[in-house]
Structure formats: C-alpha cells, structure tokens
C-alpha cells in the first residue's frame, strides 16, 4: 500500500513536468525577435518554369529527398555555375569541371597528395571517377546513376554530389549561406545563388517581416502621396529583381516643414558628403528612438535640429527639398531596426 501511495503522489509531479514540456517545447521553435525569415524550398515559380529545363527538376528533387538540400538551391547552383549545363566547355580557367563545376580535389578528396591551392590536383580521368579512390581520400563525388563510376560529367552524379557537399557544409540544417560560401568563397556568389533560389519557388525564401504596428508609435511624417514604396522592384517580364529602394518617398512641397515621426534624439544632422552635395541622402537627419529604432529624413533643403537635440513626435527636423541623389522635391523616409532598414509602411499605418 505504501509503495502504491508514493506512486500516486508522484503523478502530480509528472504532470508538472509534462506541462512544462508542453509549454516550453514550442518556444524552442519560436523566433525571439520581431523580424524573421522564410525558408527555401517549395513549389516551382513561373520564373523557375521558364528557366529550368524540365527534365532536371526530378533530379534536383531526388537529391533533395536524399540529402535534405532544397531542390531550388541545387537548381540555383546549376544556374550560376553553368547556366544549366549550356556554357561549353564546362571547364573553368582554374580547373573546375562538369555540370556543377567541382574542383577535382573536392570531388576525389583533399587528402590526396597532389591536392593543394585551388584544388586542381593531379589525377588521371579514371582516377577522378574511381569510387574506391573517392572513399579513400574523402571526396564528395557520388555515383548517383549507378554505373559504377562517379563522374563530374554525369548530370545526375554531379547534382547529387553537389547536394552531398552542401549538406555536409550545413545546407540541410539551415546554414545555407555557409554552405554556399563553402562551394565558392565569394559573397557575390552566395548572393547570386540565393537570388536564383528565391526566384525559382513561389513561396520560398521571401523575407517575412512580422511587426506589431500598435507597438511602434511611429507616425506618418508627411501627408503627401507615396511616390515610391519600399523594396526591390521585380521585373514583370523576367521576374528578376531590379534595384532596391530601402525607404518610402513622400511627395512634399518646397518650404514644407518635415516633422519627426516619433520622439527621439538627433544623432546626425547634415550633409551625407559635405564635399559633394549631390551624393546619396544629401542633407539629412537621423533620429534615434531607442530600442534599436532610428528614422531617416533625407533630401531636405534645410535641417532645423542639431546633433544631441531631443525631439518630440511632430517637432520639425528640417524642410522639404531635393538635395543629394534626387530628381525632385520629396522626403525619403526610412526606419532602421538594429541597423537594418525595414519597410516603414506597417509602422506608420500605410
């Protein structure tokens, strides 16, 4: 009886542990900040349908199923490396080979004695495809077409090998940029691969900004028409992104006073480049609102505040103008969150 009694007593404690688990487990998967990101993968977009040879898509998807690397990331690599194997001959000036442009040492294995520098190595054609050799030297080459060889010149082998390489560098666990950088040590390369990966899916990797307007306390600085919104413009024909605009432009009139959107402290007031008034923002004011928030009032003809001034929402910080890189009177308004420009629209109720 005593034994069963203590067992009954333990039930509430187990319940507490279970409840803790129920509440805390989802928190592990919740973002801590206000701004989050989407993810790669998903259904093919119209741009993807137009650009990617249809017969390649099942291969990317099979590689995704096997290695966990999003299929559109593989397609993006293929696009950036060889424009889907259309750029001939598929050998680069440093010795990268095949559909996905592997360096022979990466394919066969960097522990091979001939491997150093860029990784061209010294291999016979047979050695480059030899599975025993690849296993021995720790290479990434894969025999996906099951012909007993792993060839950089086999489309299937090279795509699976790229997936193998990317997953071992973190792509399957979300470290996409690190994995892409490992593939080719260039920030420009990473940016380009990410751009195509995003273009090739409908719902993939669109930055999702989750903000709470009611918390912001920002007011629309001027009532004028919005002449240019925030974001990257997408070419309606190619689907490719055009130049970015990282603020909102409001029409304003000569002499119109520009008020602060929210209370804060002026941290800059002056020319972006005192030696060249045609540069960038021209005459601008930055107001730091605390909590990582900062607003920009750019292209003004005159500033009416100084660094260190504390302003209230509505206090005039300058006068509408067209200084800097501007073709007409307007206010360029920005909101920074922790050093990054974000879309002001939801903050100011647009």
């Amino acid at each position, binding site marked *: 009886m005593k034994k069963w009694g*203590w067992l009954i007593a333990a*039930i509430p404690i187990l319940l507490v542990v279970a*409840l803790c688990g129920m*509440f805390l487990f989802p928190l592990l998967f919740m973002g801590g900040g206000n701004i989050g990101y989407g993810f790669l993968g998903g259904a093919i977009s119209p741009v993807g349908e137009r650009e990617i040879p249809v017969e390649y898509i099942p291969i990317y998807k099979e590689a995704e199923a096997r290695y966990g690397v999003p299929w559109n990331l593989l397609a993006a690599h293929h696009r950036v490396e060889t424009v889907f194997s259309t750029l001939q001959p598929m050998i680069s000036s440093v010795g990268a080979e095949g559909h996905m442009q592997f360096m022979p040492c990466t394919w066969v294995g960097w522990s091979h004695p001939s491997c150093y520098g860029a990784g061209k190595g010294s291999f016979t054609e047979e050695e480059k495809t030899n599975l025993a050799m690849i296993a021995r030297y720790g290479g990434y080459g894969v025999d996906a077409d099951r012909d007993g060889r792993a060839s950089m010149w086999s489309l299937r082998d090279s795509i699976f090998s790229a997936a193998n390489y990317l997953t071992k560098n973190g792509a399957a666990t979300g470290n996409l940029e690190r994995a892409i950088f490992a593939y080719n040590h260039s920030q*420009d390369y990473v*940016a380009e691969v990410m751009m195509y990966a995003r273009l090739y899916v409908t719902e993939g990797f669109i930055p999702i900004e989750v903000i709470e307007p009611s918390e912001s*306390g920002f007011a629309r600085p001027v009532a004028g028409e919005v002449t240019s919104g925030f974001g990257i413009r997408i070419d309606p024909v190619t689907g490719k992104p055009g130049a970015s605009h990282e603020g909102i432009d409001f029409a304003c009139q000569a002499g119109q006073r520009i008020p602060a959107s929210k209370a804060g402290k002026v941290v800059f007031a*002056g020319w972006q480049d005192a030696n060249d008034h045609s540069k960038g923002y021209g005459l601008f004011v930055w107001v730091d609102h605390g909590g990582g928030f900062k607003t920009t009032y750019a292209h003004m003809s005159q500033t009416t505040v100084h*660094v260190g001034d504390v302003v209230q929402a509505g206090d005039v910080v300058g006068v509408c103008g067209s200084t800097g890189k501007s073709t007409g009177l307007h206010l360029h308004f920005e909101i920074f969150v922790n050093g990054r420009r974000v879309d002001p629209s939801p903050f100011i109720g647009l």
Partner: protein
Amino acid sequence: MARSPQLPDRAKTWFSIIIGLLLIALFIGSFFSGRRAAQPKETKPAAVHEQGDVHQYEAQPEPEETTSKTPPITEEAVSSAQAVLPDFLKAYVPFDSKQPDAYVDRSKLYITDSFYKQLSTFQRRGTLSRVKTEYVTAEWTPAELKADEQWYNVDVTVTHTDINGKNEDGLLLYVVLLKLVDGKWKVDDVGIRPGSGAIPE
C-alpha cells in the same frame, strides 16, 4: 519494520497530492501572468491632424533612452570616411577568373590587415556564367555612423561576362564597414544585402 511515527502513509499520500496540485496551479498561474506582462501596450500610432501645412501630433511619451552613447559624429568625419569608397570599390569589385586573387592585392591599400588576411584565406573561383566582372558605377548611403567606425549600404552596378563573351548587367548590394585605423579610414568588412544580383534600373 518500524513505521514512521510522524504521519500515517495515507496522510502522506494525500499531502503529496495536494502539494503537487498546488505546484501545477502555481505554474499555470505564473505562465499566464507572464504572458499578460509580455503583451504589447496598445499604443496606437500618433494621429496626424492637418492644420495648414503643419502636422500636429498628439502628445507622445518622452523618448526612450537612446542607444547612442558614443560622441557625436561630424560631417567632416563622414565625408573623409566615405572618400575611401570609390577607390576601394574600383579595386575590389572587378574580377577576372584567370587572376582570381588580383582583386585582393588591388584592394590591399584600402583595407585593414585583418580583412586582407580574411580575403587571402579563401580563393574565390569564377563561374562559367561570371568569368569576368567589371565595375560600372556605385552609390551609397550611410547605415551607421560612429567616431571610429561607419557602415554604408553600397549599390554597385557591374557588367558580368560569361565564358562565351556575353555581357549581362548586374547590381551588387554590399554593406561596407569602414574603420579608423591610425588616422586613416579603411574597409574592414564587406557583406551582401538581400536582393544582391539584381538588375540595375
């Protein structure tokens, strides 16, 4: 075997059940009170009342404590820092896959030792679709200005050439960190902003 003289077993059982239930109640209570405290204040965006051409705002709370504790930045410091950007970009951006390290050597004069070391560590490889990249123009705006370090968003218009000699325009969206080293502004890092690779307007 001697039984416990203080409490009978049955009482111990019930006592433990009560404590357990109290623990559950406390836990659930604290969870919901925590959620209530974390809920945002329902402060609506300030309304704008038109009065002539001046916008009047409703009273706002005092500004929160600002994050900037550093000394104020001057126009002169901003101008002198960004003066390094044109020469740096003309050295750093052009790329030729036949000389993949040339851009690092060209940039050496304009970058910090640590960034030079970082760039020298990895060899960049040209792709068949980008065997050559040429600098066309660049524009920039400040993102963060401090007395000894400044961040700029830099938009670089480039022309890429593929292995067949076909040209394509491109836009590289960089974030460039400048640091004041021994009285000279030098580039300490270059990152990529989302949207890079876009087509210039």
